């Protein structure tokens, strides 16, 4: 059963069957030929997999992201970030990282971050003499902050598929997010000084106070969302619904950069994007039900115990495995299929599931901008109007920087856990 499930899934992926369908079809195949379960479990498990209140944060955060990108929030955040870090050498590159970091705190997706920030800053960097492939690579790598810094769709998916607390994962994502942002900022400083990029980035910089006031309502948003979740005022799902309404109010009435006529297209877009992700979640619920029936996590756990002598080598192996999987497989599918299998094994090695979730998500976030398949890569290439291949060479630097940060996050659990242990 296990081998049939795994092999048929890989086969369907390779034959370019859409991810959600491939997972469902592999499950149907396994049920029909390798079990005595009735096919009635197919609709049943796919239904119950979606019947979850925490999961509803996913469509809401995707919708809020669409509304914010359109409603004039992103360029205010960019202006603010630029007024803070734009003055030094490599100021625009640093602005990209800081703006992505702030946007990440109100959006749960890295693709939304790439479009929202990249469409403003990639052309600006190119105008200031940065090579287009470098600008695009930098944007593609900074955007991964979107899924590390809470709110984060992948962290929600990890939480739901392993029954870990979303709130704790959201708290744990903050430290690693700041570490990654810091590492990228250092990287940019060195990079720009060595290559001589970005000498006069600060030209049209606005004063800090002015741009802060200009962006005030947008900057208040992460305070409400993250503060509300950490403070126990509302659940992550409620926070997501609040951010939808807040983004609507800002876009329609405060900034007035969006009109009611724009809404149908934004809602239609969010419905399809979130529906496609939710169907993967639905199919993965069926798949992981079959996997858990067949006892695969235990089998892998026993094998891992014999093979890896310590949690350190186990985590290294997990990181290598996820790095390669992340290069090819879509993030949501990777989390939903692998997290329920690997997390019990990690726990048996004494790894905190919250820390493990952060490691998995940071690692797969790296896969979002590593060739050949990375959603951020394609998004950034589209914004920069470049063929993806031209970014490959300049991507080496951010990828190495991120691997370093990932190793720190893996082997220093306190980076993820100190805030949680402080708050709980």
């Amino acid at each position: 059963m296990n081998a049939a499930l795994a092999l048929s899934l890989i086969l369907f992926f390779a034959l370019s069957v859409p991810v959600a369908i491939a997972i469902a079809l592999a499950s149907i195949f396994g049920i029909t030929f390798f079990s005595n379960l009735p096919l009635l479990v197919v609709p049943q498990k796919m239904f119950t997999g979606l019947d979850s209140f925490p999961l509803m944060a996913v469509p809401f955060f995707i919708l809020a992201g669409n509304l914010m990108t359109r409603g004039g929030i992103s360029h205010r955040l960019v202006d603010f970030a630029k007024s803070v870090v734009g003055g030094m050498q490599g100021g625009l590159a640093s602005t990209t990282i800081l703006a992505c970091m702030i946007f990440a705190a109100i959006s749960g997706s890295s693709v939304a971050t790439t479009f929202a920030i990249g469409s403003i800053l990639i052309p600006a960097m190119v105008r200031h003499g940065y090579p287009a492939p470098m600008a695009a690579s930098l944007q593609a790598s900074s955007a991964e902050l979107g899924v590390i810094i809470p709110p984060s769709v992948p962290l929600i998916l990890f939480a739901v598929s392993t029954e870990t607390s979303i709130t704790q994962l959201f708290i744990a994502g903050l430290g690693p997010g700041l570490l990654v942002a810091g590492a990228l900022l250092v990287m940019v400083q060195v990079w720009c000084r060595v290559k001589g990029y970005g000498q006069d980035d600060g030209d049209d910089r606005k004063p800090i106070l002015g741009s802060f006031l200009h962006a005030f309502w947008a900057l208040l948003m992460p305070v409400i969302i993250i503060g509300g979740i950490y403070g126990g005022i509302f659940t992550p799902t409620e926070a997501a619904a609040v951010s939808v309404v807040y983004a609507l109010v800002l876009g329609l009435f405060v900034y007035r950069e969006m009109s009611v006529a724009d809404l149908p297209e934004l809602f239609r877009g969010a419905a399809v994007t979130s529906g496609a992700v939710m169907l993967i979640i639905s199919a993965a619920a069926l798949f992981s039900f079959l996997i858990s029936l067949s006892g695969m996590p235990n089998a892998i756990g026993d094998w891992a115990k014999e093979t890896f002598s310590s949690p350190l080598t186990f985590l290294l192996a997990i990181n290598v495995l996820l790095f390669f999987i992340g290069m090819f497989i879509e993030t949501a599918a990777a989390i939903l299929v692998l997290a329920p299998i690997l997390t019990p094994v990690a726990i048996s090695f004494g790894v905190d599931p919250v820390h493990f979730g952060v490691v998995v998500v940071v690692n797969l976030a790296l896969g979002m901008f590593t060739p050949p398949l990375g959603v951020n890569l394609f998004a950034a290439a589209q914004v920069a109007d470049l063929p993806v291949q031209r970014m490959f060479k300049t991507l080496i630097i951010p990828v190495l920087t991120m691997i370093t940060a990932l190793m720190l996050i893996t082997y220093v659990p306190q980076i993820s856990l100190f805030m949680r242990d402080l708050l709980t």
Partner: protein
Amino acid sequence: MNTLERFAGRLVSVIHNFAALLLALASALVFYQVVTRFVIGHSATWTEVLARAVIIWMVFLVSGPALYLGRMIPIDVIREVMPKRVQLWLIRFVTAAIATVLLVLIWYGYKMTLRVMDQQVAMIGISVAWFYAAVPIGSALALFGLFLSHLDAERGHIGQLDEGDHGETIK
């Protein structure tokens, strides 16, 4: 463009609009839940149950438009480097795979809906079958989206094969 195709296109678009409305409705319900907690002091209990049902309906309904718009996220690295004739057969295989899953969901989803007819949803006092019906109905309507996307793919490919650049990969 024949009548069936025009009808399918119209239907998929209407379903897409309806799904977008459901997403708006679900956000409004959960927002209302937050508001009632702050204003009245305790949150309405039925909003959570209803919002979950609304999202489930949205997801299964939007599968048709997602298929039609090619938004179902395939991993197509291998397909893209295949000769065109092989790509065409891969596309046909994928359509058959999707149709199989949809047919299983329609038939067994229908049987599941009948089976839960007597179970009541807590808080709002209606049958769970109203929730489960999203699976067979959404999947049945998705067949129209699949039909349209397959037509597009076949036409695109046949068009390109006629141009005589066999073996070259499409974008």
